[in-house]
């Protein structure tokens, strides 16, 4: 028996062969299919990691824009009270005098809006990929396709014809069990990705709704200034 190690980024594939036996046609195809299953699992893992990273970058930006709303909302409270658009009773008491520059305040709102629009482009791209992947997994239940299923049938055939094939099925069996373990890890990664993606998209929706309320309040103040002061 000769041990042949094929280095694969997912995991090394270690099989033993009886070099006195010629490789049968279906056996060659079965092993090619086995390598293909490794390729597709590795490719899936890379894509999931890449999109999980992209979601993390979105989370950072969402959090940043969420925090940026806090001082804007506080200024809105005082401006609305100052222009007598709302009741003043709920405002905190501030001992010293202070001013709010309406021009600067409007610039902050415009800047926030620009960044929210820019963020949306990233969210949109990730949401598209998320939806396409969710649809694909719903239809196919995994990243393997029909060609991979046919490959699995060929691998079964190798096990059935263990006396004729050159690959040692004891080594193939051990290697395949390890491959199943690697597939399980990528499946877990995929579950994490779906949970994380759902959470980030919800987070963005919440940010968007909160921002919308702030923009409407700012518009109301500007309308008031246009009509009554300018």
């Amino acid at each position, binding site marked *: 028996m000769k041990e042949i190690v094929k280095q694969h980024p997912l995991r090394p594939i270690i099989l033993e062969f009886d070099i006195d036996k010629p490789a049968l046609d279906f056996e060659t195809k079965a092993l090619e299919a086995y390598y293909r299953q490794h390729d597709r699992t590795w490719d899936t893992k890379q894509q999931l990691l890449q999109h999980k990273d992209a979601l993390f970058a979105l989370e950072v930006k969402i959090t940043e824009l969420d925090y940026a709303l806090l001082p804007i909302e506080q200024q809105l409270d005082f401006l609305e009270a100052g222009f007598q658009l709302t009741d003043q009773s709920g405002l905190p008491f501030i001992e010293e005098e202070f001013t709010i520059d309406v021009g600067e305040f409007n610039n902050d709102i415009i800047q926030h*809006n620009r960044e*929210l*629009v820019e963020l*949306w482009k990233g969210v*949109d791209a990730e*949401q*598209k990929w*998320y*939806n*396409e992947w*969710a*649809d694909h*997994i*719903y*239809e196919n*239940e*995994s990243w393997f396709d029909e060609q991979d299923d046919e490959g*699995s049938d060929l691998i*079964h055939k190798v*096990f*059935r014809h*263990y*006396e004729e094939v050159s690959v*040692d*099925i*004891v080594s193939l*069996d051990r290697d395949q*069990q390890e*491959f*199943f*373990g690697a*597939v*399980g890890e990528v*499946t877990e990664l995929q579950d994490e990705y*779906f949970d994380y993606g759902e959470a980030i998209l919800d987070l963005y*929706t919440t940010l*968007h709704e909160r*921002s*919308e309320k702030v*923009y409407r309040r700012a518009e109301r103040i500007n309308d008031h200034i246009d009509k009554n002061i300018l």
Partner: protein
Amino acid sequence: MKKPTMNFKNLDAAQLLQFAEEIHNKMTDNSDIFATPSPELATLATATAAYRDAVTEAAFNDRRAISFRNEKRGELETVISDLAKYVEITARGNQTVILSAGFLPTKDPSPDSGVNPKVERLAVQPHGLGSLKVAAKVAPWEKARYYQFEYRKKEAGAESNAVLSPTSTLDIENLEAFQEYEFRASYLGKSTTPNYSDVVSTFAL
């Protein structure tokens, strides 16, 4: 719609046995829901026991035993697949019923299958003379995340420009004076595929 997952082909031997036993136990416990399973649960029990014995036999790296074990695995997978189809029909998408049969429900398809409604009442009004801008307005839609306005010069081969607005009104600026433009708009909700309004035209002043 939820359905039982059939993604068990890459489970290792111990996981597959555990999965088969879980299905048998849960469907037995919930026999009021799964009154006439097809194939019968006795068939599942027999296939599971045969696979378990074959796994034990194959533990000593005997080639014939490994081959036999794989055959028995194939038979067990077929029984589980057939039961999954029965559970799918019985459950009719109900996740609780799927779980009560010991199966895992599939991941939902994207929640984004809804189509954005077509924009209604797109109105475009030029501002005053020399302003070079127009005010575009559509009927608001509560689920819109953005409103996408598109405009182009009304002439052959003119390039379209798209502007995103978080509100249903938008001033479109820097247009050419006395040039006629075409406008259309779309809501963008959870679905990001545009569904454009009818085209309206006006001159910039």
